[in-house]
Structure formats: structure tokens, C-alpha cells
């Protein structure tokens, strides 16, 4: 263990013992360092694997589920859609610009690795309060700039995302990115080295000292010294990445690339052991062939460096020249560093000297850790907090609510992202909740990622299932059917039983939703240790769910655009579920209450019902109801369409006792539909046939959002709503409006 400490590794005593037993000898320093990188939580999923097995991974559209660089679904006509989700939380907390940018770079290569061209990015960001913390504003500003500079330069559109602010992210911001790719099924490549004799070619940037111990760094809590760990954050170079993307796609077209692996977490060490373990082969590599940024690098540093913009190519023996001339065309550096063997060992040499020879499957499979779970005491206590007083001036409250940073317009963010490049973005950020892109075969996908740390903190099971439900609602609202999902599970230190309980509950919630709704998981990521020693606090549990929706044709796509005379209907019942709501937390400063519950049977009926309404083209506009409740959804609908609405709150199907509950509850399973008068009854009939509540609650009229509550009226001019909603973030970030 002394050597483990000297080498600054995170391996536990049990893990070193396991390694010793398997090897039948003392591991040398290089082996310890390689195993440390590979067995880090980040690379190995050693704490989460047993629970992740609960997630269904098979389905009608699934070609490749979790376990590879990207999930793959069949979108018809020989085309595949690939998707992956990642985070770069720790690096972004220390170097927001570089951390966020390299996060984008990493995930693009994951998509590229399966032989597909990246076509879209979603960025899902979480920071502390930008109302009170200049540190959080600083992180927010530079994370967005990092994503903008990188994504824009490589020419992959950032078509959407989500931003949430909560004090629990003050020191641990979450920077998640989801990437999608499109290609032909016949070009699919896997991260495998199947054929002994094939050449292993390292392509891309030089291997340097940046990103040393990145995976291990991501698998430990942040400390005050973390500020000095900037060398663990890689240096972004989007231009180099762009050249790698083009060179890789051209190389794949030769048909001679038989395996591809992005070098991310764990560097060469992880990349080599994974392609060998997955392919059932071995690899032999000479470190003197690795192009280095600094001359005097130690073999350990070379093996675990996480320098960016590097890929491992496995190329059919005899065709190296055909492939490498493409790298030369693009000015991309490459070096043939070794070959695939049939001995199932990873052999690392320096010239003729063998530095290590270690079984690939031993490296690639960390011993599982079974963690203890304990329900935290706060869960039951916070359910019982007393309700706040009802505000006297609900019009004022509505303006306050839509000015909350979590609800306010994110135009300040998405305007910095090129969301049009590639000319596939049909529904753009700001128009609809989910982005819609066209596919080369004439079909359309909708993509959306959601999270809700406030719900998940109070009730991780319903919170996580609810996040899934919300992402589904978003893709349904644009007229597509949810066909697959990805999850990103972000929590504190898993050795804390209370943290692990929230993880366990979240996974169960997601798995139950996936099974019931028959939406398979095609990929995911787990990020633990999102806590810091300074405050001793973990982040609120934050599962992020990305859902892919598919539509056969353009005709069924539905915008969130309500024009004059349109009748407004609500689908679903409103219940007094305000725990973790923006209304409780943002307006009343109240943490607690009962969070919206997820009823799987209802959700099943709801999806079928909405798809029927969509396919019969009965809805002119659809919007889902989520953060901020009915009031926020209607306000946003008015703002986006530049229209007023008159709404009779008494018509809203509900079980609430108070008006503020009807307005601001975040009950799941609800939509607002805009329809022509002659389609109203048909929509209600369809809902009734699925036993789902549906009522006409008003119509598009005037230039105010007006709620009638019996004889009382709450009215706000749409212009005023728009000013409040649109100006919050630019003002906080010091921009003119």
C-alpha cells in the first residue's frame, strides 16, 4: 500500500490483494498505475454494476445497448442512430472552459468510434445559485463559452439542453453532454480487436502530461488542493478534433478499420485492455512508438495520460498504407504502436524490454464492490413540512416565478451555440422542449434531456422516474414516439450509505419506468464523488435522462405555437404535489413536501393516448407541463406565440384545495393542447377512451394571460411576462438585454 500512496493512486487494499492473487506475484508500479486507472469508479462501474443490471436494454429498435462507446438504434432503411451521454464535472469545477470543452470533444469521439458522424449535441448543466454566487456565475459563463467554442468549431450543432441552478452544485457543477450520430448500419465499427495480426495505430494528438490521473481524479471527492490539480484537466483543441473526425470517417469508408476506440478516461491503458478484452484477443505495444509531447515521460505517464483528441485504430494487416495516407491528407499525426495478438494479454514494451504482461480481462474487469444503503432520515421529515401561506397577489407571484433562473429563458445560453450547422435542425432551441432533427431517410428524431435534482432529493424513486416521464413528455409533445433512453447518474460518495440509498432508489425508479413503458436503455454513465470536503456536502441526487423520439413523417410533428382563436385543453389531472417545486423552493424558500408521484399504468395509457391524438393530427400545438406547473407552461406558450390566453381555472381537472396549487403544482402526466374548435370533442373522446382526464380550459385571445377563478381574475400582460422571462439571465450575467 505504501507504493499505492507514493504513486498517488486510489486503489484500496482489497483491490491490491485481488490483483496480487490474480497475478500470482507482486504487481510492479506500471501495473498498479494501469489497474488504478482501469479500476477507477469512472471506468469500471464497480459500485454501480449490480444495480445497473435492473435496466432493460433490449427492444425493437436496439442494435447495441450499454457497454460500448455509444448505444445504437435502428432508424430504418439501413440507417442507424447512435447516442452517448457523458459528463465532465470535476474538470469543469476547476477549469470551466477547458473542462466543458474537452467534455464535448470526448463524447464526439465516442460517437465517431462506432463509425457514425456526430450530428447533434445536448448540454445539460447544473450550477449553484447565480442569484447569489459570483463563483457560480463565473462557472456558468465559462462552461457555456467552452461548449460554444468547441462545438461550434467542430461543426456539430448544439441543439438543446437544460440548465438547473441549485445551491448543492455550488462547488460541484454538473456538466453533462449527450451526443447523437448518424450513419449506415454497414459502417458500424466496434471497440474490439478481433483479429490477431491487425495493426494498432494511435491517431491524433501527442501524448503529454495533461490529464494525468483524470479518471482517478473523477473518482475522488474535490478537496482544496483540487484547485492545484489543473494538470488533471486536458487541453482542448477543436481544430485537431475536426481533422480527426473527417479523417476517421474517410478511413472507415475504406472498410479496413476493424476496431476503433477513443482514448478518454484511463488513456492508453484502458483503451488497449478494453479492445483486447472485448475482442477476446491480446495486444502488444511498444511505448517508444508513442508520439510524446514531452521527452522524459515515464511509462506510467504514457499509459495513463488522458491527452485529448487521440484514437486507437485497429487496421487490417496489409492495409496500413491505405488508411494512413488519409491521416496524412488531414495532417493528423499517427503511429503504428503495436499489433493484435492471440494470447489474451496486454503486453507493454519499451523497445525490446517487456515492462508488463498482464491479462486483458483482469485489467478490464474490476472486482465489484457491494455498497450499503441506508434511507436518510430527512426523507420522511421533509415530507411533513407545513404548506406555505397562499400569496395575495398571484399575478405578482407568476411574474416572480417565470423570472426564476430555472424557469427563465435560456436564450443567453443557446444563442452562443451554433444549433443550425449540418442543416438538420428542424425544431430549434426556444421553439420546442425537444429538438427535432431530420434523418437522411426522411424520418425525424426528437431528442431531449431532463433532470430535476429538487424532486430527486426529496424522493429519489419518484424523482428519477419523474425525470424520465418528463423527457418522454417532451418528445411526445413534438409528435414523436419515445423509443430509447440514456441515463446519467450523478451522486456523491457511494461509500456513504445514505448517498448510495438515493442512487439505488433512483436506478429502481428509472428501471421501473423503462420496463413499464417499454423504453430500453441504450447507454449511460455513472458519476460518483460529486461532493467536496470543504463543505462536506454531496450534490442533490441528479439522474439525467435523455430520450430519443422517432417520427415517420414531417406531418405529425407538432410545434408549441398557439395562434388566435385556438382552444386550450389540458390533459391529465392536477394534484397538490408541490414538493421540490419551483414554487415552493423559488418563491417560498421551502424545501419539502410531497413530490409528484409517477403512476406507471397511467403513463402507459397517456403515451398511447397522446400518440393517437398526434397521429390523427388533432393538435395544432402541444406543450408539456413541468417546472413551474400549469401557470409557467401557459406563460411560456403565450410568450413563444406572442398571444394572450383566457383560462378558466375552475375547468382544470384537479384534486387541489388551493388556487396556487392548481397553478404551480408540478404533477406529472399533463399536457396543454392547442386545437381547433371542431377537434375539441374528438380529443376529449380519445382521452376518455384511455380513462384520462381532459377539459377545455380556455382559448387564445387578447394580449394578456388571464386566469378566471370564479369571480376573481388574475391577469398579466404577455409583454410583461416576456420581459421578466427573457431578461433574468442576461441581467444576471451582466449583458444588456
Amino acid at each position, binding site marked *: 500500500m505504501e507504493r499505492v500512496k507514493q504513486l498517488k493512486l486510489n486503489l484500496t487494499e482489497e483491490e491490491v490483494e485481488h490483483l496480487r492473487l490474480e497475478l500470482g506475484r507482486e504487481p510492479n508500479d506500471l501495473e498498479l498505475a494501469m489497474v488504478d486507472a482501469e479500476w477507477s469508479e469512472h471506468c469500471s462501474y464497480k459500485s454501480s454494476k449490480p444495480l445497473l443490471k435492473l435496466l432493460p436494454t433490449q427492444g425493437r429498435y436496439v442494435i447495441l445497448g450499454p457497454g460500448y462507446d455509444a448505444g445504437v438504434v435502428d432508424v430504418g432503411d439501413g440507417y442507424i442512430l447512435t447516442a452517448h451521454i457523458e459528463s465532465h464535472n470535476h474538470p469543469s469545477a476547476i477549469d470551466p472552459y477547458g473542462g466543458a470543452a474537452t467534455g464535448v470533444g470526448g463524447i464526439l469521439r465516442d460517437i465517431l468510434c462506432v463509425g457514425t458522424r456526430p450530428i447533434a449535441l445536448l448540454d445539460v448543466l447544473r450550477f449553484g445559485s447565480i442569484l447569489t454566487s459570483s463563483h457560480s456565475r463565473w462557472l456558468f459563463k465559462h462552461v457555456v463559452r467552452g461548449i460554444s467554442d468547441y462545438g461550434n468549431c467542430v461543426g456539430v450543432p448544439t441543439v438543446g439542453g437544460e440548465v438547473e441552478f441549485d445551491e448543492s452544485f455550488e462547488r460541484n457543477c454538473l456538466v453533462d453532454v449527450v451526443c447523437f450520430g448518424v450513419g449506415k448500419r454497414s459502417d458500424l465499427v466496434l471497440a474490439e480487436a478481433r483479429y490477431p495480426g491487425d495493426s494498432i495505430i494511435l491517431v491524433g494528438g501527442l501524448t503529454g502530461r495533461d490529464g494525468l490521473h483524470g479518471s482517478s481524479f473523477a473518482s475522488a471527492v474535490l478537496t482544496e488542493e483540487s484547485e492545484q490539480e489543473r494538470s488533471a484537466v486536458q487541453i482542448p483543441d477543436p481544430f485537431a478534433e475536426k481533422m480527426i473526425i473527417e479523417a476517421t470517417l474517410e478511413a472507415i469508408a475504406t472498410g479496413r478499420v476493424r476496431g476503433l476506440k477513443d482514448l478518454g478516461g484511463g488513456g492508453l491503458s484502458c483503451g488497449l485492455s478494453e479492445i483486447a478484452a472485448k475482442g477476446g484477443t491480446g495486444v502488444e505495444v511498444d511505448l517508444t512508438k508513442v508520439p510524446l509531447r514531452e521527452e522524459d515521460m515515464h511509462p506510467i505517464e504514457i499509459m495513463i495520460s488522458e491527452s485529448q483528441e487521440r484514437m486507437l485504430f485497429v487496421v487490417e494487416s496489409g492495409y496500413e498504407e491505405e488508411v494512413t495516407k488519409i491521416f496524412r491528407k488531414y495532417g493528423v499525426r499517427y503511429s503504428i504502436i503495436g499489433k493484435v495478438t492471440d494470447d489474451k494479454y496486454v503486453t507493454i514494451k519499451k523497445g525490446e524490454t517487456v515492462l508488463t504482461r498482464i491479462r486483458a480481462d483482469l485489467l478490464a474487469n474490476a472486482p465489484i464492490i457491494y455498497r450499503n444503503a441506508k434511507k436518510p432520515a430527512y426523507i420522511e421529515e421533509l415530507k411533513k413540512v407545513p404548506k406555505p401561506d397562499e400569496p395575495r397577489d398571484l399575478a405578482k407571484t407568476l411574474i416572480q416565478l417565470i423570472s426564476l433562473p430555472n424557469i427563465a429563458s435560456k436564450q443567453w445560453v443557446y444563442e*452562443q*451555440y451554433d444549433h*443550425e*450547422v449540418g442543416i438538420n435542425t*428542424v425544431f430549434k432551441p426556444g421553439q420546442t422542449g425537444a429538438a427535432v432533427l431530420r434523418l437522411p431517410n426522411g424520418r425525424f428524431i426528437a431528442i431531449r434531456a431532463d433532470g430535476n435534482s429538487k424532486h430527486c432529493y426529496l424522493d429519489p424513486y419518484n424523482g428519477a422516474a419523474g425525470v424520465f416521464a418528463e423527457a418522454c413528455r417532451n418528445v411526445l409533445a413534438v409528435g414523436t414516439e419515445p423509443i430509447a433512453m440514456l441515463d446519467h447518474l450523478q451522486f456523491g460518495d457511494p461509500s456513504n450509505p445514505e448517498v448510495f440509498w438515493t442512487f439505488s432508489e433512483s436506478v429502481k425508479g428509472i428501471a421501473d419506468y423503462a420496463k413499464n413503458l417499454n423504453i430500453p436503455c441504450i447507454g449511460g454513465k455513472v458519476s460518483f464523488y460529486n461532493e467536496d470536503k470543504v463543505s462536506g456536502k454531496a450534490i442533490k441526487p441528479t439522474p439525467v435522462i435523455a430520450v430519443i423520439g422517432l417520427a415517420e413523417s414531417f406531418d405529425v410533428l407538432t410545434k408549441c405555437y398557439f395562434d388566435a382563436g385556438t382552444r386550450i385543453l389540458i390533459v391529465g389531472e392536477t394534484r397538490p404535489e408541490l414538493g421540490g417545486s419551483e414554487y415552493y423552493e423559488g418563491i417560498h424558500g421551502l424545501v419539502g413536501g410531497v413530490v409528484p408521484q409517477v403512476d406507471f399504468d397511467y403513463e402507459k395509457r397517456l403515451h398511447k393516448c397522446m400518440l393517437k391524438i398526434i397521429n390523427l393530427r388533432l393538435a395544432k400545438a402541444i406543450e408539456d407541463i413541468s417546472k413551474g406547473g400549469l401557470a409557467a407552461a401557459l406563460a411560456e406558450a403565450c410568450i413563444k406565440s406572442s398571444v394572450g390566453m383566457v383560462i378558466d381555472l375552475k375547468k382544470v381537472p384537479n384534486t387541489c384545495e388551493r388556487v396556487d396549487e392548481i397553478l404551480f403544482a408540478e404533477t406529472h402526466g399533463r399536457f396543454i393542447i392547442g386545437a381547433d374548435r371542431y377537434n375539441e370533442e374528438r380529443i376529449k373522446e380519445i382521452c376518455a377512451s384511455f380513462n384520462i382526464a381532459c377539459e377545455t380550459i380556455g382559448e387564445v385571445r387578447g394580449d394578456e394571460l388571464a386566469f378566471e377563478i370564479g369571480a376573481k381574475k388574475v391577469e398579466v400582460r404577455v409583454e410583461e411576462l416576456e420581459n421578466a422571462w427573457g431578461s433574468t439571465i442576461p441581467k444576471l450575467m451582466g449583458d444588456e438585454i
Partner: protein
Amino acid sequence: MRIAVIVFPGSNCDRDVHHVLTNVLGVEADLVWHADGSLKGYDGVILPGGFSYGDYLRAGVIAAFSPIMREVRKMAEEGKPVLGICNGFQVLVESGLLPGALMRNVGLKFVCKWVNLRVENNETLFTRRYVKGQVLRMPIAHNEGRYYIDPEGLKELKEHNQIVFRYTEPDGTLSERSNPNGSLEAIAGVCNRRGNVLGLMPHPERASEAILSPYETIDGLEIFKSMLDLGG
């Protein structure tokens, strides 16, 4: 009519422009790698958007020295249409084929959004299908799009009717709000004196199919049709 779309290392709108030419308009167009030399046999050339050479040093400045630019210059001198979009505009300015300079946006941030453009000159090879004063909708996406030229140069631009597009309100009026990057006199596109070389920051290829436009418009397509001298 055969059009060359130049691909510099880091171009990223090359395939988009190529798609519009071949799939939307059905004309012959090739992606020409910048190192592959000749533009013989082409009737027009487009320098697409992107980040040529990663925008290192300054946007467009390295690509301006690419050998292919000698060929582009030759085509310009022969009076053939040369169109530079976004980064392509930056390259044309850096190579001296168009006057002025493009600087960091006034907000110091990348800006991607749909804007309104007023047609100031409909006598170029690219704007013949527009009416003067017509307001077009197209998206912009750039970090360095603030057009600048010295007072003497501006005078000359005006004398020779070289200002082709200005950013305006939807009704065609000028305002500070509608100028997204702080360009001098809201200039969004300029041409050479002969009217066969045009550079603009907005992306006409992103506004050439109704499905991609929030307004279901195809205002950008007319630039390509005009350039190709397509009837109808």
C-alpha cells in the same frame, strides 16, 4: 453550370452548401479539397462557413494564403461568381478580394440566431432575383462578424454600390437592436465593384428549405439560383 465548394481544413458548412446545390437545386457541384489545386472547368466557386484552420491567428487569415486562393482570384478576375459565406467571407476579406475587415462581435460572444436582412443592391450576380429593399430572413452563426472599414473605404463602398445586405428590423428599418454583432452601418454583406464576388455573414444555405426555417421561408435559396442564373 458546375460549382466548386472549397473545403479547407476546418470548413464545416461545406457539405451543407453542397447539399443545397445538388439535392435542392439539382445542379452539379463538387467538394474540392483545398490542396487539390485546380478549379478548371468550374463556372463558379463557393467558400463555405466554418473555422478554417481553427480560426487560429484570426478568422480566415491562414486559408487566405492557401494555394487554391490563386485559382479563386483568377475566377474572380474572369468575372465568374465567387461567393463567401461566414468564414468564407472572412477568407475573401483576408485575401483582399473584398474590402473591409471582420472583427469580434460587439457582445464578445458567439451569436447564433435568425436575423432580418435588407437587400441594398440587387444588381450583383447573386441578388438579381431580389427586389431592392426586400427583407430576407436568414440565420447567422459567428464570433467574428462585425464588419468594419475605414471612412475612406466606406465612402468608396457607397460610391460603387458595394453594400449588398444590411441587418434590419422585420420591417426593414435600421436599429441598434437588430444589428447582432455591431457591424459598421449594420453591414452584413459586401461585393466587389464588378458585383461578381459576394461575401456575407448570414448563411443562405441554412435558409434554403422551408422545413428548416422557423418562418417556413426559403429566402436564401435565391442567392444560389441567382448565382447559377437559373430561370423560373
